[in-house]
């Protein structure tokens, strides 16, 4: 069966520090991968998605970037964090089929102080 791992679960970082959040998927190949951010108690904002190694689509101009160095690895990064980067970050994967659902990791709670 497929599983998705996301870490760390929580993170407190000072303003101006770098960020690296990692997400890996097991049990499937060539998944579509996604990064979402969720404001407190609200909906999900799509940040990046990837349909293959090295292929990244950015949805929202911001202080973040994403990379996909391996088929089942998706990384969210920042060179210098801002207070506004605080939030709950969710990684997800979906199959390549026409009618497929997305499956989510447990998320990372990021607090920038």
């Amino acid at each position, binding site marked *: 069966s497929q599983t998705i791992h996301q870490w760390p679960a929580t993170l407190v970082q000072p303003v101006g520090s770098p960020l690296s959040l990692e997400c890996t998927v097991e049990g499937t190949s060539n998944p579509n991968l996604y990064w979402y951010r969720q404001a407190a108690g609200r909906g999900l904002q799509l940040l990046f998605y990837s349909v293959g190694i090295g292929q990244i689509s950015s949805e929202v101009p911001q202080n973040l970037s994403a990379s996909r160095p391996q088929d089942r690895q998706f990384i969210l990064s920042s060179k210098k964090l801002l207070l506004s980067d605080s939030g709950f970050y969710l990684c997800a994967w979906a199959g390549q089929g026409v009618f497929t*659902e997305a499956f989510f990791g447990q998320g990372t709670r990021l607090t920038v102080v």
Partner: protein
Amino acid sequence: EDKVVQSPLSLVVHEGDTVTLNCSYEVTNFRSLLWYKQEKKAPTFLFMLTSSGIEKKSGRLSSILDKKELFSILNITATQTGDSAIYLCAFRASGTYKYIFGTGTRLKVLA
């Protein structure tokens, strides 16, 4: 621009009540509409709807899609405290791999 709007934003009911959550969307080349439940961390998948008028049902939860009027509803009958969560609606358009989510509805069920 493609978008999805959920209503109400929040809802408080008592155990045993029936609730209806709404999701309306504006999207070109609609492919599918999905409902998720988020209790604490990871949203979990509930339903995928692709055709109008066909009800999807799982226990006390059911959902239906109206592609003409561009909306979907999620019904929960005989609510329980365990139904307390944020319910998220999302769509996927043809020709894209993106899942676009709405604002969510926060449901609280009181004992």
